[in-house]
Structures are given as structure tokens and as C-alpha cells.
């Protein structure tokens, strides 16, 4: 006699099968919200980026179809004497701009953090350049750099009997002059971030250190700076990327001969712009973007690695 069990197997009562489980409903919502940015970045950012890699292997003048030419664009780029110059300029912006702007903004943030009187006003004052249009600012600075009766700086210098400086017309001084503008433009943002970082350090750390007998300098070196490191790492990377991609200030301050005089201020992005939209060599410009991309990637990763948390 075979044993037969009637109905549902014991211990496994039939649960009604629900398709929209809690997890699925949540996933639907999550992806519903994520879809827009994912689509946006896919179409507007990632696809063109990927496409640029392919374009860099072609010859394309926007009119005819791109034709595949292998690595020719790259060999041409590395042989181009202009590229060497542009490469050096770009790194000059990076190597001088990042440390100077970070040190300046830290000093200002550190001082502002202690000021009670007019604190909000001063902070707003420093932040103002950051929200001002780059071209407007660049034009104001261009005016500052003019020869004596017009230019404020030369006027000031001549007051002390110092000879006129050519600033933007000098192959030596044009790049530092533009850098000053760029540093000034980014300062407000860095100050705000540094101040937020400083505010986040609990005051009892300082009090404990004062009781343990540390002076201001020791407190800064042993407590403030180490605790501010995450903020600093962020700003180093952020500001480096900014200087490696510098364009606005250079373009607007040297409009007659963008990147001049004699290419002495020309950064990589400006070269890319000119190759693409003055010479219409899209493939060549794409190869330059790929190089810029690689530089940005390597520099950022290198910084993150050097500044990593060692435990």
C-alpha cells in the first residue's frame, strides 16, 4: 500500500506567491530615480568620452567621414614642438598654482576661523570671486596689468620708482600673471572648504592640548593639520584638476593671441580648443584630449596614493 499525503506538504504551508516583493518594489524606486542621471551621464558624458578614444585614431575634419589612421595622431603629437611647450605650461600652472593657492587659502581660513568681528562679511568677500564670471574677472585683471596711467599695479609700482612691468606682454611674466588671477578666482571655494574642515574639529582637542602645554604652533602642526588631512586631500586633488584644465583665464586674458605671447601661456586645453575649432582637426584634438585625460588620471591617482591614510 503506497503512502499518499493529501494537500500541501506538511511544514511548508502554501504562501501566496507575490511578484512585487518588498525588495523588488524598492529596487524599482531606486532605479526609477537613478535612471535619469544614468541616462544623462551615459549620453552626455560617457558616450562622447568613449567616442573620443576612437576619434583619436582617425583623421576627421567634421566634413567628410572620419578615416582610421591608427596611432598617427599620437606620433604627430609627441613630435609637435608646440606640445612640449604646452605640456610644460600646463604643469607650471599645476606645480605653482596648487601649492600656492592651498597655502594661501589655509592661512586665510585659519585666520578667518578666529575672527569673530565681521566674520560673515569677510567670508562673503573671499567667496565673491568664486561666483563671478571668469571672463568678467579676467577682463578686470587685464586692466590691472595695463601700463602705468591705466593699470593699477604698474601705477602703484611706479609710485615707488619701480620700472614698468610688461606683465601680459612678457613671455616670462604672462604665465605667472594669469596664474595669480586663477589662484584668486579659486581661493573663495578653498577657503570655505578649509573653514568647514576646521569647524569640524572639536574644540576639546585644542583645550586638551593647551592643558598639556602645547603652543599655538605645536597645536597647528600636531593636531590641526593631521585632523584636516581629509579636507586637504580633497582640495589638493580638486585644485590640481582645476589647474590642469585651466582655460577661461588664459583665453580671456590673452584674447588677441590666445595662449600668447608666443604660446608662453598656452595650456593643454587651449591647444585642444584651437586644434578642434580653429584648425578643425578633430582626430588630432581627440588624441590631445586622451593625453589630457591620462595626465589627470595619473596625477589624481598619484596624489591619492601619496596622501593615503597609513595605518
Amino acid at each position: 500500500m503506497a503512502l499518499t499525503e493529501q494537500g500541501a506538504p506538511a511544514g511548508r504551508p502554501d504562501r501566496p506567491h507575490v511578484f512585487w516583493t518588498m525588495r523588488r518594489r524598492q529596487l524599482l524606486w531606486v532605479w526609477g530615480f537613478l535612471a535619469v542621471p544614468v541616462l544623462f551621464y551615459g549620453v552626455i558624458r560617457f558616450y562622447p568620452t568613449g567616442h573620443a578614444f576612437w576619434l583619436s585614431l582617425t583623421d576627421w575634419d567634421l566634413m567628410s567621414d572620419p578615416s582610421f589612421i591608427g596611432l598617427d595622431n599620437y606620433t604627430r603629437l609627441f613630435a609637435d614642438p608646440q606640445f612640449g611647450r604646452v605640456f610644460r605650461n600646463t604643469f607650471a600652472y599645476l606645480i605653482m598654482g596648487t601649492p600656492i593657492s592651498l597655502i594661501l587659502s589655509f592661512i586665510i581660513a585659519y585666520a578667518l576661523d578666529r575672527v569673530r568681528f565681521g566674520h560673515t562679511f569677510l567670508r562673503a568677500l573671499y567667496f565673491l570671486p568664486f561666483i563671478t564670471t571668469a571672463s568678467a574677472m579676467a577682463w578686470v585683471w587685464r586692466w590691472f596689468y595695463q601700463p602705468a596711467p591705466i593699470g593699477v599695479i604698474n601705477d602703484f609700482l611706479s609710485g615707488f620708482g619701480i620700472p614698468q612691468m610688461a606683465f601680459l606682454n612678457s613671455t616670462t611674466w604672462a604665465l605667472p600673471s594669469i596664474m595669480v588671477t586663477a589662484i584668486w578666482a579659486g581661493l573663495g571655494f578653498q577657503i570655505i572648504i578649509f573653514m568647514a574642515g576646521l569647524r569640524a574639529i572639536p574644540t576639546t582637542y585644542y583645550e586638551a592640548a593647551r592643558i598639556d602645554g602645547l603652543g599655538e604652533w605645536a597645536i597647528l602642526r600636531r593636531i590641526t593639520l593631521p585632523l584636516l588631512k581629509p579636507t586637504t586631500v580633497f582640495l589638493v586633488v580638486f585644485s590640481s584638476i582645476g589647474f590642469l584644465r585651466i582655460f577661461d583665464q588664459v583665453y580671456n586674458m590673452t584674447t588677441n593671441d590666445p595662449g600668447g605671447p608666443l604660446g608662453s601661456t598656452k595650456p593643454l586645453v587651449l591647444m585642444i580648443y584651437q586644434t578642434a575649432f580653429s584648425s578643425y582637426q578633430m582626430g588630432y584634438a581627440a588624441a590631445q584630449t586622451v593625453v589630457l585625460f591620462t595626465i589627470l588620471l595619473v596625477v589624481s591617482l598619484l596624489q591619492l596614493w601619496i596622501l593615503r591614510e597609513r595605518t
Partner: protein
Amino acid sequence: MATIALRNLVKSYGKTDVIHGINLDIADGEFVVFVGPSGCGKSTTLRMIAGLEEVSGGEILIGDQVVNELDPKRRNIAMVFQNYAIYPHMTVRQNIAFGLYTSPLSREQKDARVTEAATMLGLTPLLDRRPAALSGGQRQRVAIGRAMVRDPAAFLFDEPLSNLDAQLRAQMRIEIKRLHQRLGTTIVYVTHDQVEAMTMADRIVVMRDGHILQSGTPTEIYDAPANVFTAQFIGSPSMNLLPAAEVEGRIVAQAGGPLLAGLRPHDLVVGAEEGAFAISGEVTAVEPLGPETLVHFLTEGRTVIATAPARMIPAIGSTVQASAPRGALYLFDAASEKALGRR
């Protein structure tokens, strides 16, 4: 080691006075505990002793020296903060050694001090960890270690145990007390926990609204509270207070009477032999604690707490009678709230 003295110490923020001219002498090696409700000025007083807060009036003396204008580092005082204030970017060893940052000792001597402190606090196996990998109690010990290596004139503690759970708190209480016995350094300790005050102090200083209400040994404060506030603040559960009057030399409960009669729940025993004072009412709640039971009952519209022996738990709604022995009744003046003695 040193004595600490406060002379007419005043602190004001703008026009508001938060410390109203307090006077206190702390002997060398004494363990003094400041207690009081939140906002009464305990931390402010402590921070003035440490030099973290400017003195608005009066004087602070450490040893024989007036330190009002001295920087914290020149006062040779160590402080342990409520939130520990140990540095997240340093290991336990570095944190403890940080107390010796300005010390003229040689490297070897400093290392020896750190090792010694770590051994004393049971931190040796944790010396190379970062604070993030420590429990609350361990962090607190690191903070104490940093203060210990200094060999300061006095230790200041600001509610060091308030972030710990009850069990750890009991354990750290003992450890701090043992530390005091071993080092013999003057300690000023702030808490709002009366149990901490009772168990650790050589002397308790009760504060309220920027005034010192009473200062004395734990037994003095418990047995002879100077006023209603101290009587209710020290001792757990709080002392019962009933309006009363004296009629023909005897104390009787009387609504709106000129006196306040105080009875500690532990003196008021349910179902005891006839005592000197008896009181009865309807039970509203019982709290069995194991060795004893707290019985809440209503009498003349007020809740009174009494104790009952462990196994005798009265039913809610039943009427109980509790009595207290002679000498257990504290009398206060209802208007001034000052103590009038016991009977």
C-alpha cells in the same frame, strides 16, 4: 601636588552671572566632587581652575600662587574631558605620550612613564591601536593615562564617566578611586550623578545656580543636609517630603504647614514594628529590586516611597502602613527650605 583655593570666584557671560562668588579650600591630596543639576556651573568652575575660561572676579590659587592670569600650561594641571578628547590620528601610545609633549624628560624616561601608566590602566595590549578600535571604557582609560603620565599638581575630571554604561561606570569608579589612593594627587571631579559623588569623594560640594549650597564628607551631606535641595539631591531614591506642623511638641502631617518633614525611603519600612513615625496610604506602584522592594503609596495627595523587605510585595491598591525609627525624620523650614535638625 598642591592645594587649590577659590576666593569669591565669579564668572559672568556678558551681564549674566553664572558663578556668584564661591569660596572653597581644597586640601592637598583631597578628592573633591562637585555635584549639582545640569547648568549649575560645575564645568564652568572646573574650566576656570584649568585656565580654559577667564575669571570674571575673585581669585584662584594653586599652591600659594594666584593663577588667574596664568596660561593653562603654566598651571601644571591635567584634565580629563567628558568626550575623552583623545586624538583619532594617534595610537594609544602616542596619545598617552602626548601628555609629556613639553616635558624635559629623556626619550627613555618618557617611554618608561608611558609603559608604567599603560600597565596601571591595563592598556598594554592596546598600545599600538588607534582610538577608533577601542571601546568607550578603553578610550576613557587612555584619556586618564594621558593625564597620569604628567605627574600634575592636580587632576580635573569633567563628567568622565557619563558616556559609559552602568556596569563600566561602576568599574571605572573603582579604578579612578584606586588611582587616587595610589598617586595621592589632588582631584577635582565633576558629576551630576550622586552615586558617583557618594562613592568616590573625600568631600562633596553641592552646587546650584552658581552657588555652593553645602560642602562636606559624603556622610555629613547624607546625614545632615543643610537644606531641602541637598536632602533631595543626595540619596536615591530621593527623600520624601511632606508639609507638616508641630502640634503639642509632636510632628504631624499638615497641608500648608510651616514645616517640611523629610523621610528617606530606606528609613521608611513597610510593615515594620511600630516606629516613632508612622504613615499609611494606598499603594500605587511597586518596584521589586531583588534584595528589597520600593513601594510607592499615596498619602494626602502626595506620593511617598518606602521600602519593603524583598519577599513582601504589597498588592497595588492595597493600603499599607510604613514607619520610621526615631532620628530618621529631617525637619526643614517650609519658607526658607533650611534644615532645622532631625528628630
